[in-house]
Structure formats: structure tokens, C-alpha cells
């Protein structure tokens, strides 16, 4: 389905850019492998590390096991952007129409420049040579340049070009579909920003190559998979992501701020950028549009200017816009001698808008503004109170209230990753519907007490003796009630004394529910009998007796 006007795109892609960006500051030029981590997952690694089996997305522990000598670096998108700035500027000198997707990935409209430099191959060589000058010839490992019709095909070509000797892969005009056909569907997820779930569904349906997806009738795909499916189908057929009708915005959409007092600090500028992004997005949302490309312009009092185009196939949220504003400004400010005065103008232009197909709002994994704010705040709180202090719940499973969920350090979990969250809280999905006795118990934990669960859990330290409050449950003569090996009571319980408090009359009780956990492990074995007790003041407790000692495990407050 070739279309008349097909954009010719050149993609510059640097594999594992985060590692390259971290090297000058990380001091790993000695040849030690390096791994960059975010939320305990590998986001990038050096070639020597990937040679021994470190892959992106791996957990930190696995990566360290594979490559113990590696230097571990924290992921810092600002640093990535700062280090990428010289590359962007070098390429920008060769060609004016340039858009940055993310640090380490930029796209160029190739038709004009390649005619000027004498062909696609020559343009590629030229760009590599220029980047080589900026970065120093020796370390271009990981750089790839792809030229093809459409962004997606050129992004795939650039990634494949990384391993070729010339670092360049040129797909002739109108050959994008043929080039993509034998490629695996996983590319859709990797460079096309198609939902991982849809991609894995394609694979499970036996559509293992992009060609197989493209062969399906477009109508059928739209029928079955809706808008995301249509997008995937378009990409797989070598068509560009957005129909060309979406290229020109019908009217100028921009948000700008002129500062009476020149601003020299980064933070206030980013803050203003945030407001501008909010205005711009609000304006677009009113018209049902989504911005896929926007231009950030900043100007100083002395007329220095930084103008950059940013692109994201999926559309840019306000948060994503602010992030890019920050990247651009950090890069600009880090550049020696670029600014001789404070910034007086900041402008965001929506350059390319399309109709919002609703593909941004996903039930799972789509981050709302509240989510993004919360995740940022979590990081900040970890800075104030210490990483250990900020924790999120994780399912553990068990028969005592303190065992069911445990708290894990928030920085070890990726709060933005829906899959990670779902696996952390495994039973949480259907948990709200968990019902009482009439339904089978949820999960493989026979012996759990039925809902409602206690709202105050005192036994949060399982297997240690300190977790719960000492108590005494006594019979009418004031003797502690004992529970025999078969669950028989020495006498009905009459009073409950918590810690050193007064004895309270018991007006209702249920139990015992004996529990014999881990009988196979002498050191961790627990044998106890649980009771629910309601005292005269109406309060209810979960108490247990273990080795003749009564404790309050939880309270139904």
C-alpha cells in the first residue's frame, strides 16, 4: 500500500546510551563492564556485560550474578540528555529538520539532506564522521544509522545497523514493507511503542513476523484489536505511524512565557515549562487531539537560542513534555559558553498533532498524572527519610495477619511498571471481591480466618517474639486458659488482660483455630491456637496462644 508522499527518515540510534553517557563521569573507561540500573532493573549495559548475558530488564541480582565485576550506575535521564546534546548539535549542523525521541535516539527528515550530500549512504557516512569527531573515534560501539521510508522502518534499520561494519543500513525507497516482513513482531514493542500485551498476543496467535501481521486484512485487525491493533498493523506494513493528514496542525498551538526578569536557574524554568505544558495539553485535550511532536524554544537576553524538536510516537503527556524540556535545558546549560545571560523566553509549540485515539489511556500501566506525581514523591521521600523508610506492600502469603502482606522498600520495586506491581500484589486483583465462607478460600492458604480481616495488625514481625503484645486470657478463677494438643480448652475464657492493662470481661469468643506451621522445620515451626475475642467495651481482638503464652496478634479496630 504505497502512498504518494512517503517520508524518508534517518534514525540515529545509540544502543545503551545510558552507559555511554555515564562513562565520562563513572570513570569506567578502564574497560570494566558497566550496568545502568533504574528501580533495580537493568536499563542499559556495556557490550562486555551483554556478552556474558546481562540483558535489559533483568533484575539487579541476576545481572550481578552474570557479571560480578561490573560497575553499577544509577540511571540519570538528565545526564543522558546532557551528554547527548553534543551529538544532537553535531547532527543539527548537517541537517535542519531534526527531532529527538529520547537521549540516544534522534530522527532526521532525510530527503533533502541526502540529495544535498549525494545519496543516503553518503549522508550516513557524513553523520557518522561528524559524531565520531564529537565523541572521539574509538568509541562508536553501539551507534547505528538507519535510513528508510517511515519512522518505524528506519528505527528498526538503525538497530540492526549497530552490528554491521559500516554502522549504516539503507532501505531503498518503497522497500520498507519487504524489509520489515521477515522481522520478528517484538520490534513493534521495542521501537513502535505498541503494547507489550498485544505483541505477545500476536506471537501466541502464531503471527511471529511483521509480515504475518501485515498480511491480515486491515479491517479484521481493527475489528479484533481496535485502535492499538490498527496502529500495529500500519507499522508492520511499513506505513508510517500517523496518517499524513495529521502532520500539519490546523492552527497554531503554542504556549509561551516571557520573563521580565531573566531566569538563570534550571528549576524555575522547568517549573514554568510544567505550567506551559499543562496549558498546551489542556488546549489539545479540549479539541480531542494528542501531540506527537513539539518544539521547545528558549532564548536568553543576549539572543542565544536553543530550539529543539521532540517526538514520541505514542503522544506526549504533560509529564513527558516537562521531562523533555528539562533534558533540553540541562543540555543547553551544560554546554560551555552557550549562555551569557538569563533566559527571557520559553515557548512550547505543538508541531504535529493527531486525533487522540485513546491509546494513551490504558487500564493498566498507563500512568495518570496522580501516579507520576506519587512516584516522584516516593523518590523524594526516600531522599528525606531514607530508602528503608518508604515502603510499599507486597504479597507474601500466610495464615496470620502479619504474614499475609509484608512491606518492601519502595526503591526496589518499579511503581511505574504495571506487571511488576501486579506480581508484587498477586492476589490483589480479585481481592476486593473475596468473600466469606460461602466462597472457596482465595489462594492456597487453608486455615486462614475468613474476612473481615483485622484492621490493626500487631503481629507484623512474624517468627520473632517481639511482634505481638503479651496478653493473658484467664478463666473465671483467674487462671490462664490452656489449650491442649487436640484443641480442647482447660476452661472457657472470661477475661482478657493486655500487657499491663486492666482485665476486661470477654462477652464473646470464637475458636480455637489451631495452626501448626512448618512442622518439618524444627527452628521455624510455629504451633498456636487462634481465638477471636470480643470484650465488654465492644472491641474485638485476634489473640493466640503459643507455648502457653497468650498474645494479641491483631485488633479489629
Amino acid at each position, binding site marked *: 500500500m504505497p502512498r504518494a508522499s512517503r517520508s524518508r527518515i534517518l534514525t540515529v540510534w545509540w544502543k545503551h546510551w545510558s552507559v555511554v553517557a555515564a562513562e565520562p563521569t563513572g570513570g569506567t573507561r578502564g574497560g570494566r563492564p558497566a550496568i545502568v540500573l533504574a528501580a533495580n532493573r537493568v536499563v542499559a549495559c556495556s557490550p562486555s556485560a551483554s556478552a556474558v548475558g546481562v540483558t535489559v530488564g533483568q533484575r539487579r541480582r541476576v545481572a550481578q550474578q552474570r557479571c560480578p565485576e561490573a560497575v553499577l550506575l544509577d540511571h540519570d535521564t538528565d545526564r543522558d540528555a546532557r551528554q547527548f546534546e553534543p551529538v544532537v548539535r553535531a547532527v543539527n549542523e548537517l541537517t535542519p529538520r531534526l527531532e529527538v525521541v529520547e537521549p540516544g535516539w534522534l530522527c532526521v527528515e532525510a530527503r533533502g539532506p541526502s540529495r544535498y550530500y549525494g545519496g543516503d549512504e553518503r549522508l550516513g557516512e557524513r553523520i557518522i564522521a561528524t559524531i565520531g569527531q564529537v565523541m572521539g573515534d574509538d568509541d562508536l560501539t553501539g551507534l547505528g544509522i538507519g535510513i528508510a521510508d517511515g519512522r518505524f522502518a528506519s528505527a528498526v534499520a538503525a538497530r540492526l545497523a549497530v552490528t554491521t561494519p559500516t554502522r549504516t543500513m539503507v532501505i531503498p525507497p518503497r522497500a520498507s514493507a519487504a524489509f520489515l516482513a521477515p522481522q520478528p513482531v517484538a520490534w513493534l514493542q521495542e521501537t513502535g511503542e505498541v503494547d507489550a500485551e498485544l505483541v505477545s498476543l500476536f506471537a501466541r496467535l502464531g503471527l511471529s513476523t511483521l509480515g504475518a501481521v501485515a498480511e491480515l486484512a486491515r479491517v479484521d485487525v481493527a475489528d479484533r484489536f481496535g485502535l492499538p491493533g490498527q496502529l500495529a498493523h500500519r507499522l508492520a506494513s511499513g506505513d508510517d505511524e500517523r496518517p499524513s493528514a495529521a502532520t500539519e496542525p490546523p492552527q497554531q498551538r503554542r504556549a509561551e512565557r516571557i520573563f521580565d526578569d531573566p531566569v538563570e536557574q534550571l528549576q524555575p524554568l522547568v517549573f514554568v515549562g510544567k505550567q506551559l505544558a499543562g496549558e498546551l495539553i489542556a488546549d489539545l485535550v479540549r479539541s480531542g487531539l494528542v501531540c506527537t511532536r513539539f518544539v521547545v524554544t528558549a532564548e536568553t537576553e543576549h539572543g542565544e537560542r536553543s530550539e529543539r524538536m521532540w517526538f514520541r510516537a505514542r503522544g506526549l503527556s504533560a509529564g513527558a513534555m516537562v521531562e523533555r524540556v528539562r533534558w533540553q535545558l540541562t543540555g543547553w546549560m551544560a554546554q560551555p559558553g552557550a549562555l551569557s545571560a538569563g533566559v527571557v523566553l520559553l515557548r512550547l509549540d505543538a508541531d504535529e498533532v493527531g486525533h487522540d485515539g485513546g491509546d494513551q489511556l490504558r487500564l493498566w500501566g498507563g500512568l495518570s498524572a496522580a501516579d507520576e506525581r*506519587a512516584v516522584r514523591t516516593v523518590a523524594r521521600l526516600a531522599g528525606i527519610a531514607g530508602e528503608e523508610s518508604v515502603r510499599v506492600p507486597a504479597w507474601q502469603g500466610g495464615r496470620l495477619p502479619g504474614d499475609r502482606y509484608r512491606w518492601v522498600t519502595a526503591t526496589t520495586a518499579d511503581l511505574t511498571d504495571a506487571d511488576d506491581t501486579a506480581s508484587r500484589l498477586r492476589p490483589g486483583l480479585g481481592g476486593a471481591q473475596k468473600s466469606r465462607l460461602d466462597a472457596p478460600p482465595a489462594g492456597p492458604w487453608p486455615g486462614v480466618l475468613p474476612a473481615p480481616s483485622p484492621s490493626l495488625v500487631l503481629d507484623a514481625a512474624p517468627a520473632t517474639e517481639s511482634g505481638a503484645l503479651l496478653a493473658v486470657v484467664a478463666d473465671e478463677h483467674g487462671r490462664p486458659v490452656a489449650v491442649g494438643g487436640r484443641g480442647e480448652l482447660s476452661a472457657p475464657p472470661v477475661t482478657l488482660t493486655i500487657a499491663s492493662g486492666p482485665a476486661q470481661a470477654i462477652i464473646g469468643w470464637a475458636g480455637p483455630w489451631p495452626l501448626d506451621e512448618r512442622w518439618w522445620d524444627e527452628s521455624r515451626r510455629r504451633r498456636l491456637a487462634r481465638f477471636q475475642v470480643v470484650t465488654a467495651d465492644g472491641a474485638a481482638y485476634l489473640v493466640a496462644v503459643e507455648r502457653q503464652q497468650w498474645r494479641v496478634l491483631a485488633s479489629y479496630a
Partner: protein
Amino acid sequence: MSLAMSLAVAATASGSWLAIVGVSTFGLEAAEEFGIPLERVVSVEPGRPGRTTEPGTGGRPRRSGVNSRVGTAAAPAASPAALNNGEVWAELVAATFDGFEVLVTKVPQRLNAVLARRVQARMQAREAVLIALGSPGPFSADVELHAGDPHWEGVAAGAGYLRGRRVAVTSSGRRVPRPRRMSLWLPGDDGTVAVAEPDTEVVPLAHQHAG
């Protein structure tokens, strides 16, 4: 505590995040049964001074709307030492408002009024809700809720299990002209909060969640 949880349900279920500051005894499973999505729950322990427990003599929570406090009035607060240090608490709580709409905490006993005003201003600027367990201290609560006279259903002498609880919830505070009182299932037999018996002026639940 149940009252605090039931207050947070509506907000968290519609996408807000819940922060629990310095309440190590928060029963996650109970929260889940009330309908709080645990993927949006984060706990912050000021200084994490080891494991602390408090006698959970609960049963009498108080709660409120825009700035709310819920009280476990009968609970003698054996709160962590660091939490009593108002400054640490105020700093954490103020930072938490940046990203969380709902916050469950205990107001430190020795919090001075200046810090409290600062925290309150920040909270109002962020349009967040503070649900304070126990005494609101120097804060002036919009709504104070007090659950008293609890009556558990389901257990007899040695038989059954706890099924539901009836409590009499009283609301008072700055935003409530006349104290109101009603009887609620907290939780009811099906795990949700329900009106058992509206005796005096009925306060619709939706109204209570407002804010």
C-alpha cells in the same frame, strides 16, 4: 482504623494515592477488603525506629472530610519516639502532600501550632486530605468522626466467627453545624460499609467521602 480505611476507599479507588505516615500497624488485608487498591498504597516511617507496636484498643475512631481526623480514642498512643518529634513528622507530611491526595497518620503529641499551621496550609494548597488517627492535636479538623458503641456480630461463646460490626458514628467539627449520629455496619456482613439504622439526621455516605 476501619473508619479511616472506609474514608480512603472512594478516593483511592478512583486513582488517588494513599500514604500511611508512621502507622506501622495498618492492616493491609483489611484495607484491601474495604476496596483500597494496594498498588497505590505507600508507607512512610519517620526514621524507622525499629518496630513499634501500640495497644490496639481501638473501637472509637473519629474521622473527617477535607481535613479529617479519625481517632482511635481509646488507644493509649505508644507512638514511635521519632514521630513525637514534630519537625520530622511535619517535614515528611508536607513532602508527602506533593504526591499523595490522601494521607493517614497520627498527629504527634508534641506538635507545635506553627508547624501544624504550615502543614495545614500545604495540605490545602495541594487539595489533599489528612486523616488523623486519634487526637487531631493543634489541627482544626473540618470533620471529626467518632465511632463508638461497637457491637460485633457473629461470635457466641466459643462458636462462629466475626462477621460484621455495628458502630454508632458521630460527626462533629468545624464544617458540621450540628453533631450527627448514625448507626453503621463497619464492616457489614458483605465486607462493605452500610447504613444500619439512620436514627438522627442522616448523613449520606457520599457526603462523608466528599473532599
